[in-house]
């Protein structure tokens, strides 16, 4: 066993990921990676990433309504590999204990693993310090934390908050609440003719009144990627902060918060092979230091008197109460798993799969796919939201599930303003992850054709 961060560990019966020697870190290519002791040996070259990783996900091997499950709803939530499941079980079975205050063995072990998970996250996104990671319940809570702690303090009447109309409700509603309380004004950037948020217009809309820019990194409906570095650069020029919703990017590509220069960044564990109930907020140290608490209670205090209390330093200041310890450790295990594959490799595989999905969908008659057309310069995320003329997406999704075992999503995908702008009430969405294969796409297209024929013949 290696010593970790100065904490000596006795031989432990629990297998958890080993820590490697620190790798040299250059901003763009290499990332520090952690090898998971329990992943398989390198897969044979002929197998795609999807094929080689599928065995790690037991949930994918089942039948649904008489057909093989084809899970294409990863933008909603991802599946968990065995190592993550094991990490959760190991925690509860072996060393579950409350963190941070305990003296005894179990407690110190739990604390160590919990803080190790924080460290893994910080390294995963290249934060400069683990204290820039605050554990939350999910990305939504993280955004609310910023809105409450930073927003209410720093945003005044007539200040402007800039968002795109393609934002997820979780990135919109907290700021509506802030605007109600402070008198600030929300402004929205619309789509350009390529079907993506108009970045040039966004830059135009920036002014000294703008205090915050809230943008997604990758859109969960359009599949488009925004140039965050560009946006943060322009935003900082006018003195505005930038909050990046990285829920659809962190799971699928290497994200470097220092490169992006984001002030705040949020993501959810359950979309990146980790358990539900945990997520994180990244924030620059100086911002965190200036922010008052969000929730009050145990763990976030320093001293408590009858009429006042003093608060802990970040990140503890923003982590009231007993955290989701097992889940945080599970997220750490997920990060190990992903790092074991390599985010670059995942990203490249998904770019290919994205193109294959898009091209295959184009073969469906009367289909309209939202978002940009993929090309050499324009990469789409491996998801497509679409509508087939005269067929309601719910009808499509229902029959795809019932007749073919294909799981997609139908609805507004928590992006009602976007759908309103697109002029539709709902859309169908197929979203892939690295454990999907071309066969999954083929099955989906075959099923979709069948379903479309069924409904067309009925009319």
């Amino acid at each position, binding site marked *: 066993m290696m010593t970790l961060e100065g904490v000596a560990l006795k031989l432990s019966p629990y297998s958890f990921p080993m820590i490697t020697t620190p790798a040299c870190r250059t901003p763009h290519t290499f990332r520090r990676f952690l090898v998971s002791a329990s992943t398989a040996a390198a897969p044979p070259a002929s197998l795609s990433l999807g094929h080689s990783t599928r065995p790690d996900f037991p949930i994918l091997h089942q039948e649904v309504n008489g057909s093989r499950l084809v899970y294409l709803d990863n933008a909603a939530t991802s599946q968990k590999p065995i190592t993550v499941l094991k990490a959760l079980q190991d925690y509860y079975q072996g060393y579950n204990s409350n963190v941070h205050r305990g003296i005894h063995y179990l407690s110190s072990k739990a604390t160590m693993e919990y803080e190790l998970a924080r460290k893994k996250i910080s390294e995963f996104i290249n934060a400069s310090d683990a204290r820039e990671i605050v554990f939350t319940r999910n990305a939504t809570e993280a955004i609310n934390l910023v809105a409450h702690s930073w927003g209410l303090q720093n945003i005044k009447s007539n200040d402007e908050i800039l968002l795109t109309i393609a934002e997820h409700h979780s990135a919109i509603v907290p700021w509506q609440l802030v605007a109600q309380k402070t008198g600030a004004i929300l402004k929205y950037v619309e789509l350009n003719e390529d079907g993506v948020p108009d970045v040039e217009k966004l830059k135009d809309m920036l002014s000294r009144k703008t205090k915050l820019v809230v943008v997604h990194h990758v859109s969960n409906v359009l599949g488009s990627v925004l140039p965050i570095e560009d946006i943060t650069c322009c935003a900082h020029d006018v003195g505005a902060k930038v909050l990046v919703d990285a829920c659809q990017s962190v799971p699928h590509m290497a994200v470097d918060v220092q490169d992006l220069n984001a002030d705040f960044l949020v993501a959810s564990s359950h979309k990146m092979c980790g358990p539900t109930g945990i997520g994180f907020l990244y924030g620059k140290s100086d911002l965190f230091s200036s922010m008052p608490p969000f929730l009050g209670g145990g763990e976030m205090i320093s001293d408590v008197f009858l009429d006042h209390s003093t608060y802990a330093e970040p990140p503890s200041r923003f982590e009231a109460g007993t955290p989701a310890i097992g889940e945080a450790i599970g997220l750490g295990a997920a990060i190990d798993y992903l790092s074991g594959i390599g985010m670059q490799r995942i990203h490249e595989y998904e770019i290919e799969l994205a193109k294959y999905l898009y091209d295959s969908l184009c073969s469906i008659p009367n289909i309209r796919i939202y978002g940009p057309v993929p090309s050499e310069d324009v990469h789409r995320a491996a998801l497509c939201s679409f509508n087939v003329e005269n067929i*309601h997406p*719910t009808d499509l999704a*229902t029959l795809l599930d*019932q007749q073919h075992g294909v799981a997609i999503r*139908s609805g507004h995908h928590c992006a009602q303003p976007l759908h309103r702008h697109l002029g539709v*009430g*709902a859309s169908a969405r197929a979203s892939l992850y690295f454990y999907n294969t071309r066969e999954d796409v083929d099955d989906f297209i075959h099923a979709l054709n069948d379903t479309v024929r*069924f409904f067309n013949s*009925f009319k």
Partner: protein
Amino acid sequence: MSSSSSISSSFRLFTTKLPNSSFNPKTLSAFPKHPNFSSFRRPISFERIPTISSSRSPSALAPSASMPLQPIEELPPKLREIVKLFQSVPVPKAKYEELLYYGKKLKPLEDKYKTKENKVEGCVSQVWVRAYLDSDKNVFFEAASDALISKGLAALLVKGLSGEPVEEILRVRPDFALHLGLQQSLSPGRNNGFLNMLKLMQKKAKDLVSGSDSVDLGLNSQVGGEKISTSGSEIDGGIEGSSLGLSSNENAEQLSGTSEKISTLGSRINGGIESVNVESRSEGNVKELEVVGSVSNEEESNSGDLGGRGKRIREALARELSPVELEVEDISYQHAGHAGVRGSGDGETHFNVRVVTKEFEGKSMIKRHRLIYGLLQEELESGLHALSIEAKTPAEVSTK
């Protein structure tokens, strides 16, 4: 007013208020006639509040894993037929075709009814449901949707529940959909369209019948204030026969040109004169009420055209229970032609029964029903197909 037991006249009428005054919709479902009324209807059934006829609570709308599936027999007849039809289709795909076909046949819903109150929550597609009372005071539904599958489900519910007695509508549990074999998700909560569709329809039916202000009547709104005068009645015990001024102050939305007037008078007027089912009459003819019929001693016959079985039912109940109120209605015609009825001989197969008696005091709903069934055992064995029972004590009635 004389006490019920001494009433021996042939029909019971009671003074209605003047046509323009308000009836309590709870107690009456009386509608003025339209001059152009033409057809003749049999006694109209009450819309009753739900009775518990089994140990399951009628409000258990959410299916629970531990509860057994609601047996098909408990479903209202039309819905039962639909379920059986689906069960007979072996292939899931064909079931969907069937469902879509129902949707296709669904009568379109006018845009003005696509309101917020009519919108079903939890559907990813848009579904609207409208409920109204027809001239017979039965609940009917209309629906629309922009997606085919939910349209089909809505059509299925519309067809299966329209015209059924309200307590049967309310008794339907959403897990009946499992019988369809369509694998409709039935998880309760905001996002279950089908569950919410059914719930909304049940709520609307209940509201309509209990006379909430937003009652939507499929009736001619001009029918205020017409009377049906009757011939003099010889009624012992002083129930004055007088005009049945059947008017309604409820908002009638639809103007149906040939709406039939229904006069169902179910009021409890001091002293326990029981309600009377009065047949509606043909236009213009102010006949004496068909209600005038059999004279029975010591009995409150309410409807003269009860056949043999109906009379026997009444006799048995009156004799054994000494009710202060007793109504027996033959609603077999509503079920005429469906499988349960064929072959039952005299056609008297379905009845609504309302009994108010001290005998029920201290007895649970189930016990009350069992008591009644026990008294009618012979009838049940000889072709009586279904009883819809309302069993109350006088105390319960007077607190209404």
